[in-house]
């Protein structure tokens, strides 16, 4: 499924892995997270290797409250830090709710909060906004961009949505179809917050050219 792949992320850099469905992006993420050992090669993680991960489904413990879910993953997080995090993601009113009582959007936010609460050295996001309606996805992307801007974390975002990648990342790694290789490594020069629709459109053009050019 995966071909020859090699890349490295700089400290605090947000990279997006973009590729067609089925090319192995999730597998790659799982390998980096240490969940899959069926590969040849090596993964070098930052010093203490605290990992934060947001999966495609929220993967919350249904029998624990929102607050407990986050605290179980991040036992050393301070009350103040959690308070700020919950507020940033609009979860303050839901701290004592169970995941069964939450909508998908809220559950996704809890998963985000959990990954950030850990104060990870590496943040892995596997298509975190898939299957949400456009408005909600856009809002969550803004909230994610906001969180990442406040405190830079080395981040790897997997998505098949080029728009999402352009809007959030500093660098795009384009993957080919299976067996996946890195087709192109495209830096995004504009800073995250004021990326205007025109700039996004321009970037999209560029990416499309690269994908079409390289897949031949």
């Amino acid at each position: 499924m995966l071909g020859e792949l090699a890349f490295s992320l700089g400290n605090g850099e947000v990279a997006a892995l973009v590729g067609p469905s089925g090319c192995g992006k999730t597998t790659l993420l799982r390998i980096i997270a240490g969940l899959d050992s069926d590969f040849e090669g090596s993964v070098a993680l930052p010093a203490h290797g605290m990992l934060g991960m947001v999966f495609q489904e929220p993967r919350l413990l249904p029998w624990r409250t929102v607050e407990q879910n986050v605290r179980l993953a991040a036992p050393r997080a301070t009350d103040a830090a959690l308070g700020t995090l919950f507020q940033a993601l609009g979860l303050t009113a839901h701290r004592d709710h169970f995941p069964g009582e939450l909508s998908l959007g809220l559950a996704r936010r809890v998963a985000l909060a959990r990954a950030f609460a850990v104060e990870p050295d590496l943040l892995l996001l596997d298509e975190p906004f898939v299957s949400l309606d456009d408005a909600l996805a856009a809002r969550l992307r803004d909230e994610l961009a906001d969180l990442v801007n406040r405190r830079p974390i080395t981040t790897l975002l997997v998505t098949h949505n080029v728009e999402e990648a352009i809007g959030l990342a500093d660098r795009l790694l384009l993957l080919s179809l299976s067996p996946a290789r890195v087709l192109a490594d495209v830096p995004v020069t504009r800073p995250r917050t004021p990326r205007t629709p025109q700039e996004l459109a321009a970037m999209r053009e560029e990416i499309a050219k690269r994908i079409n050019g390289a897949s031949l």
Partner: protein
Amino acid sequence: MGARLISLILLIAAWYAGSQMAGARLLPDPQAVALAIVDEARSGALAFNLGATLARVAVAFTLAMALGSVIGLVMGRSRLADRLGDPWLIVLLNLPALVIIVLAYVWAGLTETAAIAAVALNKLPIATVTVREGARSLDRALDDMAQVFRMGAWTRMRHVVLPQLAPYLAAAARSGLSLVWKIVLIVELLGRPNGVGFEIGVAFQLFDVTRILAYALAFVAVMLAIETFLVQPLERHVSRWRPKPA
């Protein structure tokens, strides 16, 4: 509540009618049995025998649940353990209760240890099979999540694994309890000098149906009380996070 009460009254009425038709020797009426219960209670024999039986139930049940659940969990998570333990499990499951009891008495003597071991051995495979199913159906996605967030073994057991096993543990406990007390009565009948089973055995030899029914009813009442005041509240507490049906 009303329907249950009516049903109960009908039961007692049918009992009374039956006793009139069959004669007091075969089926004593409800009053006679009630009087017998009061007699036994006053002499202290009821409390003593009930106590002995309940103690055996408690010990055998705890042993079987604890050991059975641990073995079931291990077998459900490790294919090697499963392959090794499965033949033994199948044999134990299909060995008749009576055989296990008799062999225990023959090999270990007519002792309390043999009695309790026999009961526990009867119930253990059922707990194992049930918990093994639960262990097999544990959500790998949550396991992965716990691994990525570096949750410790105890945290995982308490917050990820046990809540998922809870319904299976509850099912094993439920079916186990009702099985255990029935078998305890048999081991008491066959080789103990006290307890409800022993008393029923003596009453059988004397053809004292009143006494049989008195002890039987008293015991059923105690087990129902345990079910209502211990088992059900526990079950409700454990399921409080589940979304209630609309």
